[in-house]
């Protein structure tokens, strides 16, 4: 940056926070104007902090930031939406953590990305509605992949380039798409992809949220799609995510 602004007025979502120094907190924000950035909230752990309540994770907040030596410093904060319903329900909280973890792992502090910001805000909003968290997350998975440039190929075999027929297939995380049964037999390390799950993936990839919301897929298809998405993310990020395991634990208890 040639010309560095001294202060910044923006809107963002708090992704994560950690304790910093004696009474401060370091937050990772995803902002509308500057994408992901780190900021310090001075005195956030004091009882009388005017900002702490507005800087909890998964809060959409309107901000004034000042440039400090190492990080931005939050000078004013006011909640736009606290997404309260998703704090009341453990599965929804864990789902929001999944949304946030994926976004955090896939992005660097590299400047504005309005598409991602929009998707983040919409997903948190949907998770605080009555919609099934599963539906919200799978729709988020595919939109996120589109925005990041990892859209999976679901219409032709990634190996032989022949159109995919109406039958059980394989999915290759390495090549980012479906493999026909002929090619799939030749390669190790593939995920089986049933006809139903492929249909579901295609439907989620091409539909709007309103369409996805009113469609019904079986629990088995949901579980299969979730497995394929997890394998794909693990390959792309070269690490396993923290939140899917947590989500499974709390779903069992619900």
């Amino acid at each position, binding site marked *: 940056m040639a010309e560095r602004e001294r202060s910044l007025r923006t809107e963002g979502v708090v992704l994560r926070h950690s304790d910093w120094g004696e009474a401060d907190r370091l937050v990772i924000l995803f902002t509308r104007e500057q994408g992901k950035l780190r900021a310090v909230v001075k005195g956030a752990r004091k009882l009388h902090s*005017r900002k702490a309540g*507005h800087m909890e994770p998964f809060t959409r907040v309107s901000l004034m930031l000042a440039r400090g030596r190492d990080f931005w410093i939050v000078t004013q904060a006011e*909640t736009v939406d606290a997404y309260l319903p998703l704090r009341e329900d*453990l599965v929804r*909280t864990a789902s929001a953590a999944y949304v946030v973890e994926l976004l955090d792992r896939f992005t660097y502090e590299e400047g504005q990305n309005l598409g991602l910001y929009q998707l983040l805000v919409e997903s948190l909003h949907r998770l605080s509605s009555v919609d099934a968290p599963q539906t919200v997350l799978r729709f988020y998975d595919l939109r996120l992949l589109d925005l990041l440039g990892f859209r999976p190929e679901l219409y032709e075999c990634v190996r032989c380039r022949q159109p995919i027929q109406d039958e059980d297939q394989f999915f290759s995380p390495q090549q980012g798409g479906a493999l026909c049964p002929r090619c799939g037999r030749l390669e190790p390390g593939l995920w089986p992809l049933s006809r139903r799950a492929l249909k579901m993936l295609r439907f989620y990839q091409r539909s709007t949220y309103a369409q996805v919301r009113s469609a019904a897929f079986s629990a088995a298809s949901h579980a299969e799609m979730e497995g394929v998405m997890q394998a794909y993310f693990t390959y792309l990020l070269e690490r396993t995510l923290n*939140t899917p*395991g947590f989500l499974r634990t709390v779903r069992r208890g619900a």
Partner: protein
Amino acid sequence: MPLLPEPISDLIHAFQRLPGIGPKTAARLAFYLLRADSDIPEQLAQALLQLKSATSLCPQCFNITLSSRELCEICADPRRDADSLCVVEDPLDVLVLEQTGAFQGRYHVLHGVLSPVEGIGPDKLKIQPLVERVRGGGIREVIIATNPSMEGDATAGYLRQQLAPLGVRLTRLARGLPVGSDLEYADQNTLLRALAGRQEL
């Protein structure tokens, strides 16, 4: 060739590993101890040696206690109510609650809080021993005193999942406006709960 003799530079390095202490502070502390009367460094050394060897966790509530004791002072005290249990995140939370003098029951220390984003799951906290302790019977009420934060809420929610089937009364510390605060700066979350929990004048 180091500029400082090893005993001093070793101490400086040891201090630097503590939170909030940089190289300058570490050096200042080391030189202070070097020049101070010999009882100050000796006391410090004694206290540091004892810190790990003479303390352990109470096997019932997991609070920090003397390793010579079987149970911690609170668990062993027959005057404390055995039927109400206060669940806290850290040993320091026990300390502040005890300072109020208002709670007469016993404690259970979780040693942390659930954090899905950071990958801290139920298996990393003392949650299973709590479930077994409650299942063991004799407890009427469990007061969940985790912090009023996203992680504290998630932990409370998980404890509700685990403890509700056991038929005990589950309560959580009230939340609202702190003494000396200003309504103008209150966040929606706090204000909504303060309103929901308003009391007769």
